[in-house]
């Protein structure tokens, strides 16, 4: 299979920032709108995979190492578990930030409202850590697969 054409590369580099912004929006608004950590992470990872398909795995593997993605994934899992453990003075997964007027700590107004970003307590932070883990995991899967396919093809030649 030949190298992707200039049209594919140009369209991919135009669409990529919009995909990133939409994915991060879905992650950050996980406690207000449909979506959350997994959905937003899948969108961001699909943007990275778009670059991987358009520009080839060799170009991306120069900038993103698989070990870096592995570190990012571990950071996501560890921050999720440590946020759950921080509420252990009451129960596991206790929402200790809600109503504390600290970060994400405001109490939402009563009745129907457009939605306040600064609410939810510990849930947005957990959405962010799940999003980090999903981004790193899904991109690492496709990156390793593409590198393996490429090395296998070179060996055949």
């Amino acid at each position, binding site marked *: *299979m030949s190298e992707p054409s200039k049209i594919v590369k140009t369209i991919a580099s135009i669409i990529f920032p919009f995909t990133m912004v939409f994915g991060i929006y*879905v992650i950050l608004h996980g406690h207000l709108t*449909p*979506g*959350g950590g*997994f*959905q937003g992470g*899948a*969108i961001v*990872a*699909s943007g990275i*995979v*778009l670059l*991987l*398909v358009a520009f080839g795995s060799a170009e991306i593997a120069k900038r993103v190492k698989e070990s870096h993605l592995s570190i990012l994934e571990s950071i996501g899992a560890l921050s999720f578990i440590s946020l759950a453990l921080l509420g252990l003075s009451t129960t596991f997964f206790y929402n200790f930030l809600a109503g504390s007027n600290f970060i994400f700590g405001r109490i939402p107004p009563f009745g129907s409202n457009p939605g306040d970003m600064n609410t939810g307590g510990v849930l947005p932070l957990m959405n962010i850590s799940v999003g980090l883990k999903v981004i790193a995991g*899904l991109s690492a*899967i*496709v990156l390793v*697969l*593409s590198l393996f*396919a*490429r090395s*296998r*093809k070179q060996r055949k030649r």
Partner: protein
Amino acid sequence: MPFQEIINIVLPLMIVASAVIVVALKDLLAAAIALAVMSLLLSLEFYMLHAPDVAIAEAGVGACLTTAILIFAIKATRRMEDGR
């Protein structure tokens, strides 16, 4: 007939049609793209059934990541007509 009911009848038919196209196509790359189309229509159907959460996950994972994995797998193979 209201618009929503028409959509709810037409969309499953289109999903089944694109799934049949996936099986019928001989070219593997074209079949992978048809599978992505089927996944996209399925996510639209999830949205029509009031499950936007599942629709976003299906659009991200089914339409994009699965297609990319299939394309990389097809890249590592060779067409039978080209000989060896």
